[in-house]
């Protein structure tokens, strides 16, 4: 028995916060990271799709949703505005792949993104329950706010539920 729930699609450097029941979707994460945060008691959840690690490193700060640190703040503030409690919030993340390599030894953008996301979540005391990051393939994620399950699809590596 399948009940149709609202599906909200989130683009790059974008986010949404919606009330349960809903599924938040972001398509084709490469080096980007998708971050879900929900408060299961308040029944609200959100998803952000970030492109780069830190707004501190940029001279152009017009689009804070591009960056892990500033986007997570926006996502959390927006959840609080809906009545969520920060101490009840929990998070899951996916993405941060390195699909192309140019033979440089420096850390890839994907790895830096994942690190920045983890750091910011830790700083804000939001537990990271599960993650599916790294490797060399793209991911599409669907985050079910009601169940808290994030399904991570890839073109050739099947579907993971985290």
């Amino acid at each position, binding site marked *: 028995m399948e009940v149709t729930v609202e599906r909200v699609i989130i*683009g*790059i*450097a974008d986010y949404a916060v919606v009330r349960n029941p809903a599924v938040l979707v972001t*398509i*084709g*994460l*490469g*080096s*980007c990271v998708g971050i879900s945060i929900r408060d299961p008691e308040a029944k609200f959840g959100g998803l952000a799709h970030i*492109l*780069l690690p*830190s*707004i501190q*490193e*940029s*001279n*152009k700060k*017009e*689009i804070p949703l*591009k*960056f892990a640190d500033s986007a997570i703040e926006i996502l959390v503030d927006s959840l609080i505005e809906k009545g969520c409690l920060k101490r009840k919030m929990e998070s899951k993340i996916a993405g941060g*792949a390195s*699909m*192309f*390599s*140019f*033979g440089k030894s420096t850390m890839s*953008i*994907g790895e830096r*993104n994942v690190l920045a996301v983890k750091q910011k979540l830790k700083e804000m005391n939001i537990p990271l329950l599960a993650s599916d990051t790294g490797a*060399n*393939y*793209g*991911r*599409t994620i669907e985050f079910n706010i009601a169940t808290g399950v994030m399904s991570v699809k*890839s*073109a*050739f590596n099947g579907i993971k539920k985290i």
Partner: protein
Amino acid sequence: MKNIRTLTDFQKDALKEVGNIGIGHATTSLSKMVNKKVGVSLPDMKLIPLLDVPALVRNEDPVVGIILQLTGEANGFMMLLLSKRTAKTLIKLIYGQSDETQGFDEMEVSVLKEMANIMGGTYISSLSNFLSISISSSTPSQAYDMSDAIIDQVLGFMGADVNDVLFLKTEFFINEEQVDGNILIFTDSDSLRFMLDAINRMV
């Protein structure tokens, strides 16, 4: 450096023409590699927010993306975006054979990379000769994956300071083989000043 967000009609035409010449040379080199006539569409050129790019290249099926990083007085990426069928056909034309396997083996990947390398090299040398600016390119890198993820990765490479991009999209086709692909050029908007100055020196 002032960020350029709009172009005059003259600048737009000139940049389009420069791109056109470069793409023309690149497809001629492809034509030599596959020994077939290669046609090209008129380039579609836009100065747009970086985040608007994914919607312009969305594809349901996984695609082959081969990218070259361009650095120097114009920074950005050149990308070949091919369907699996097109990529396999091009490999067959260049290398003599290709497998109908799900993915691409090492040999096939290196054929694709070499092809991109030659096309990219021709594009860059044409652009640098024409505009007298210095551009160099990285070695190519290849992925076969969701088109959104491939574009997503390139947007990440463009870096923290790039919000706008000069985006050039050209379709090439080999009619007798029923294949077609896209050549995409991403130039960050800060590099535009160099290119426009170079154009101004010419007129």
